[in-house]
C-alpha cells in the first residue's frame, strides 16, 4: 500500500557539550515549568532534561527524556572521548528499568520531554544563555499510511484477543462462508 506524503514540524534541541558549565539551570527551569501549579516548586529530580554529570571526570551531558522502554538494552559499552570515559547511557534519553534517570521520584513513573508544548521555545533552552542547548525546528516530509476503518477495527481486536485468536476466528468464519 502506498502512503500519503505529509509535512511534519520536527522540534528538537541540539546539545553542545563543550559549552556546558554544569549550572543545571535546564533542570531547574524544566521542573519549575512542569510543576503544578506552574512554577510553584523546584525539583531537578523531576526534570525531563538531566545533566548526566561527573565533574571529577569532567563529564557534562544534558539529555532529554524520550520513550519508555520495558527492558534495558545491552548498551553497557564505554567510550573514551578526549581522555574522558563515557558510559553509553550518558547519551541515551530512553527511560528504562536499569537506571534511575527520568523517573518521578515519588511514583517511579517515567517522565517524558514534551518540548514545553505551550511555549515557542522549550524552557530549558530559554534558561541556557551559554548556548549549550539550541532549539531547532525543521520541516520533514514523512510518508504516512493512513489506516482504513477496517484496519482500525481489526487492530483493536488483535490488541484485545491476540493475533493468533483473531486469525483462527477469521479462518473458521471464512470456511463457513
Amino acid at each position, binding site marked *: 500500500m502506498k502512503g500519503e506524503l505529509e509535512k511534519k514540524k520536527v522540534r528538537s534541541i541540539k546539545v553542545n557539550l563543550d559549552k556546558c558549565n554544569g549550572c543545571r*539551570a535546564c533542570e531547574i527551569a524544566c521542573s519549575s515549568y512542569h510543576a503544578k501549579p506552574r512554577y510553584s516548586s*523546584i525539583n531537578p529530580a523531576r526534570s525531563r532534561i538531566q545533566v548526566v554529570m561527573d565533574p571529577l571526570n569532567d563529564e557534562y551531558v544534558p539529555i532529554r527524556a524520550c520513550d519508555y522502554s520495558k527492558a534495558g538494552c545491552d548498551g553497557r559499552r564505554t567510550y573514551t572521548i578526549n581522555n574522558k570515559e563515557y558510559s553509553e547511557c550518558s547519551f541515551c534519553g530512553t527511560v528504562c528499568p536499569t537506571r534511575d534517570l527520568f523517573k518521578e521520584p515519588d511514583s517511579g513513573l517515567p517522565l517524558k520531554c514534551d518540548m514545553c508544548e505551550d511555549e515557542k521555545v522549550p524552557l530549558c533552552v530559554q534558561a541556557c544563555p551559554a548556548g549549550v542547548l539550541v532549539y531547532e525546528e525543521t520541516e520533514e516530509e514523512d510518508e504516512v499510511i493512513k489506516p482504513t476503518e477496517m484496519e482500525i477495527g481489526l487492530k483493536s481486536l488483535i490488541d484485545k484477543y491476540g493475533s493468533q485468536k483473531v486469525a483462527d476466528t477469521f479462518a473458521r468464519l471464512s470456511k463457513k462462508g
Partner: protein
Amino acid sequence: MRYAEAGYNLEIDLSRGSIDRVESDLKLTEQHLGGQGINAKIIWDRVPPDVEPFSPDNLLIFSTGLLHGTPVVGANRTAVNTISPQTNLFAHSLMGGYFGPELKHAGYDRIIIRGKAPDLVYLWIHNDKVEIRDATHLRGKGATETAAIIKKELKEPKAQVAAIGLAGENRVYTASIEHNWSSAARGPGPVMGDKRLKAIVVRGTKDINIAKPAELFELYLRMNKEIHDSDGNGDWMAVDEDDSFHHNHFAWGNARTRRKDFWNKELEKRWYHLKYDHMDRQMGCYNCPKKCINVISYPGGKRFGYKCFGKDTYHMAAFKELDFSYEILGVAQEYGLDSYSTPQVIAFAIELYEAGILTDKDLPGFPSDSGERSFYLLEKIVRREGIGDKLANGVYWAARQIGNGAEAYDHNTTKKFEQVPIKLGKVNPPYFLMIATGEKMNITQIEGSFPQDPLPTREEREEFCSKWEAVPDEKFKQWFLNWEKRSDVTNEMSCAITDWNEAMHYVDDSVGLCGFLSSFRGQFGGGVAYHMNNIPQIISLAAGLELDKDGLWEIFQRNRNLVRAINVRRGMRRADEKPPEDHWAVRDHEMEQKLLDDYYDFKGWTKDGIPTKETLDKLGLDCVGEDLIKRGILTGHEGTPSQEIVAAKDENAKAGGC
C-alpha cells in the same frame, strides 16, 4: 507550607550514633534568614564559651542558605560553621558547588553535628533515609578520590559529596572541606577530622516550594541572561590573562617581597598557553551561568579546579611560576588544604630555615629548591610529622611552639589567622577598619561593595554613579563623586563604607548567594546583580517573608552582633582588632585608634568592641545581653565610646569638675 525552606534540621550525634529530624522554627528564619545567620544563633545557644574546639560538644553545622533550591540565580554557597581550633572563635566558612541545594532537596535546611565517632565514618543522607556508615576503608584517601569511591559504592552518581582529605583527618588547622572544585576553609576542616567524619554524602529528590512562583520565575529567566551577559558579575580573573594585579602588587614569599615589575607580556603569553593547553573547562556552580572555575588536567596529577587568587598563592609563596601551582594544586586538593593559608605556613617555615631558627635537625634532608621545599613541607604538615606537627597549627601557633625568635616571623596574622599577603604604603582608613574588626578572617570576605579606588576624573565618577544601582544610600554616591585620593576618606565615610561592605557579606552568607554576583564584586565596576535594593523583594518572592531594605539591614545587624557576641564571650577584645603591623609602611596610631572609637560608636559597641546592652536589645537580642552581663562581660550600663565621654563630662559637672 514553608516556602524556600525544607523546614527541618538534621541533628546528628556521632558519639551516640543518633540521627534526629527536627522541625525548624520559622521565627528563626524571620530573624536570621538562614545560612550563617541561623548557624550563629545555634552556636550561641548551644556552644558555651568553655567548650574547646576539639571537644565533642563543639558543633559543626552545614547550612543551606534561605534561597538555595529556589530559582534565584547563584544561590548555592553552603555555610559551614563551628568554633575554629586556630582562632578559638566562630569559624566563617563557605563553599560553592551543589551541596546546599541538594541538601535542601533532601528535606533539610541544615545538618547539625555534635560528638565524635569512635572511628572514621561518613554520613549518607538520601531524603528520609539517613545513615552513619563505616569509612575506615577511606582513611588517608584524597578528597575527590573519596567522593568517587563513595558514589560508586552507593551506586549514586548524582549524590553530592563534601569530604576531607588527609589534612582534615590529621586535624591540620589549615585543612579544608572539599566538594568538587569548591572548598570550605578557615576552620571546619580540622573539626570535621576531629569528629572523625570523613564525608557527608547527600542525594535529595524533594520539592522546594516557592511563595510567588510566576513572578519569581519571570525574574529568574531575565536575571539569568543578564548575569550571563554582564561584565559586572562573576570572576573576571578566570578569563583575564593579565594577572599583573596580584603578581605586581601582592607580596611574595612569607608576605615580604613585592615584585612591582614581575609581570610582562612574554610571561603572559607563556602562562596563557600553559593554562589553555591543560584546561578542560571553565565551569560554574549550581544555577549560575558564570564560569569562575578553571578546571585543569596537569600531567601526572589529579584534575583540579581553581578560582580567583587561588591559582597564585602557592607559586608566589615559593617564588615560582604558574607551572609550580599546577603541580601542587592537585596534590593539595586531594589532601584537602586551604590554598590561602597553607602556602603562607610553608613560606614561613622556609624563612625560619633561612634564618637558622629551623635547622637540618628539624628538617632532615631539606631540599635547596623552593618548589621541592614546598612539597617537602606539605607532606610534613598533612602528616603532622616532625616539625610538621607544629606547622600544622598555622603560622601563629607554630611561631609560638617553635619559639627561639620565630614569633617575629609571624608578621601577617590577625586574630591568629593568616591574612592575604598585601603590604602597602600609607594606611587606608576603611581597610584598617575592615581588617581590624572583621570576623570573617579574610579581607575578601569583608570588602566588596564600595570601590577600592577613586576614578580619576569627575566625568568618570558621574558616569559610574549614574548606573550605580547597588548603593543603599545616596550619601555613598556623593562621597564617591568627590573622592579623589585613595587615603582621603573621613572617619564618617570609613565607618559607613565598612558597614555597607560587611552588610552585603552577612546578607549573602545567610541567603546563600555568591559574593561574585553580590558582596565581593561591587567594588569592581559597581554593576552587581544583587544588592540591598533588590534582595528584599527577591526574598519575598521566594520565601514569602515580607521584607524591605530596612528590615534586611536590621537582620544583617542582628547576625553581625550575634557573631561578635559569640567571639566576645570567647575572649575577643579591642586589643585583638589590629591589622598586621607591617600591612602599611606608614602608620598613624592616634588616627587609627580614633577611627576605631568612631566605628565602635557607629556600631553601638563599647570602647572594648562589645555590643552594648542597648544595641543588643534593639535587635531583639535581649538574651544575649543578659548572658554577657551574667558572665561579667558587660555591666549593662556601658555606652559607646562617645556616650562614655558625654557621661564622664556629666559626672564631672555633677562633681563640680576639677
